[in-house]
């Protein structure tokens, strides 16, 4: 029968998402014009956590690689930046890229070892490697050893674009630096989400889903499963390293315990992805907002804060394993970033399920 078939990924919601996303991005870039410095700092925190969450989601939700060692790449990215600025006198903003490269370089031997481990052993293996990285960096006297160090004042004062931002918004140098970091974080988050979305829409994205669902069957239909894992692991490491460099450029102070913190850079990130909805792009976005609200509400309650986070995490895993976004899309059928290809045309349209 002479029927023409075509494939579509578009949903009515996805077109609306695109427009809303464009408006939101413009509004966020313009935020320094109307938002307070505290709000800019909060947004910086949300955007960097969102970036980390998207990369962990790519790793665990799409690649099936449940890593508990992403703090290795945050830490090494941050320390590469400090090393380059303090010891090499490099430009701090360009050094963020160096942070990504350093994380990539660390990821190669990490993957070499960790890919020999499966499931829970992989998770523990990545954690162990992150601890080794932390202990090794703590021996590095040039950047303060175990106690850490600060970014030199000169480097901060000569930070590119800061003078321009000061003039533009009529703010102090420290506020201008926050605005600069915020813009960089926004750029990184947008590139990350767009990049992940693009990847998932290519045939590599299909292969990734196939490997996650059934590795043996994927190999049998010609999918290079191990290459997919490498691609995902190295991409995540690079992006996580960039985020690490940026986070500590904004903090201007670093120590091995903070930069390689499993709680801050992996546990919180897992919490964000799990409560938001693992294996979706929407999940981490929703998750980071919930996480931020909880953190603001519970900030004064000390260790109760962590216990409440833990309880919420467990409840979501038990009662809504696909996360809050999973609940919403189940009820409404909403997909903001559709990746499902639908075959339309031919005899199919009439009989579509």
């Amino acid at each position, binding site marked *: 029968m002479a029927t023409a078939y075509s494939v579509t990924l578009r949903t009515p919601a996805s077109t609306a998402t695109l427009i809303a996303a464009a408006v939101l991005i413009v509004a966020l870039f313009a935020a320094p014009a109307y938002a307070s410095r505290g709000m800019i700092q909060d947004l910086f925190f949300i955007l960097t956590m969102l970036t980390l969450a998207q990369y962990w989601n790519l790793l665990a939700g799409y690649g099936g690689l449940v890593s508990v060692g992403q703090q290795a790449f945050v830490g090494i990215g941050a320390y590469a930046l400090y090393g380059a600025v303090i010891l090499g006198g490099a430009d701090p903003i360009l050094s963020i890229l160096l942070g990504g490269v350093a994380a990539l370089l660390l990821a190669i031997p990490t993957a070499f070892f960790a890919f020999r481990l499966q499931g829970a052993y992989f998770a523990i293996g990545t954690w162990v490697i992150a601890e080794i990285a932390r202990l090794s960096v703590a021996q590095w006297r040039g950047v303060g050893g175990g106690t850490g160090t600060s970014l030199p004042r000169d480097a901060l004062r000569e930070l590119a674009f800061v003078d321009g931002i000061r003039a533009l918004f009529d703010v102090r140098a420290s506020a201008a630096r926050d605005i600069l970091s915020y813009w960089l974080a926004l750029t990184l988050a947008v590139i990350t989400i767009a990049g992940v979305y693009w990847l998932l829409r290519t045939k590599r994205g299909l292969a990734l*889903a196939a490997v996650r669902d059934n590795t043996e069957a994927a190999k049998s239909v010609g999918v290079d499963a191990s290459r997919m894992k490498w691609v995902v692991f190295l991409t995540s490491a690079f992006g996580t390293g960039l985020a690490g460099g940026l986070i500590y450029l904004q903090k201007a102070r670093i120590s091995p315990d903070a930069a390689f913190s499993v709680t801050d850079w992996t546990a919180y990130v897992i919490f964000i992805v799990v409560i938001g909805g693992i294996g979706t792009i929407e999940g981490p976005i929703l998750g980071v907002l919930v996480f931020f609200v909880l953190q603001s509400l519970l900030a004064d309650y000390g260790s109760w804060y962590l216990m409440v986070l833990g309880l919420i995490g467990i409840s979501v895993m038990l009662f809504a394993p696909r996360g809050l976004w999973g609940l919403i899309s189940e009820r409404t059928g909403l997909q903001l970033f559709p990746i499902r290809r639908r*075959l339309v045309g031919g005899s*199919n349209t009439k009989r579509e399920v």
Partner: protein
Amino acid sequence: MTMLSLQNVSKSFGSLKVTDGVSFDVPEGQALGIIGPNGAGKSTLFNLITGNLMSDAGSIRFDGQDVTRVPPMRRCLDGVGRSFQIPQPFEKLTVFENLLVAATHGRRASEAEVTGDCADVLERTGLMPKANAPAGSLSLLERKRLELARAMATEPKLLLLDEIAGGLTDAECKSLIQTIKDIHAEGVTIIWIEHVLHALTSVVERLLVLDFGRVIGIGDPGEIMESREVKEIYLGIDV
């Protein structure tokens, strides 16, 4: 020309020898049936041919090349397609996407190039009404059809079918046989493991009997079915 050639292929799991010095050739374009009791090592033999398992000894040649140590993904690209005995769909992908993965990666092609072919396979296997349903929602029968469809989507030279007729109604079985006959008529070499003997013998030109990992007979289906060993060992009839 010989499409597939096994020479003294052996595989053990611990002390259990599941494939024991198996040798046979399959000429290009032939349909070979494999029968044998449960646990005879039939599916293991398939896993060795596809590379999902690596043999301990012996050699496997496919389409003129030694593939004994070649990984499964590369063998698929060379033209080995398979179905799994227990269906292994990509559950979170739709039926169409299952075929799309196979076609784009198994043939190193772009999505646009293979969309029409995938739709064609869906029509031929009767899965078109389910094209956009998640594979995880399919019934067992539909999953078996998806196994066949996904293997077809890679456009194999050699198609390995592992018990895809079990549990079908007569009508379903007939249409399945016709589909396989059509694929065979296009020149695809087929190896088919099946317990539904009338389905098997209506398609294959040669029959191989496996027992305890060894080939105990290979030849004309009629003669093999009448042979003393088959009746004794496979059909459990005391002759």
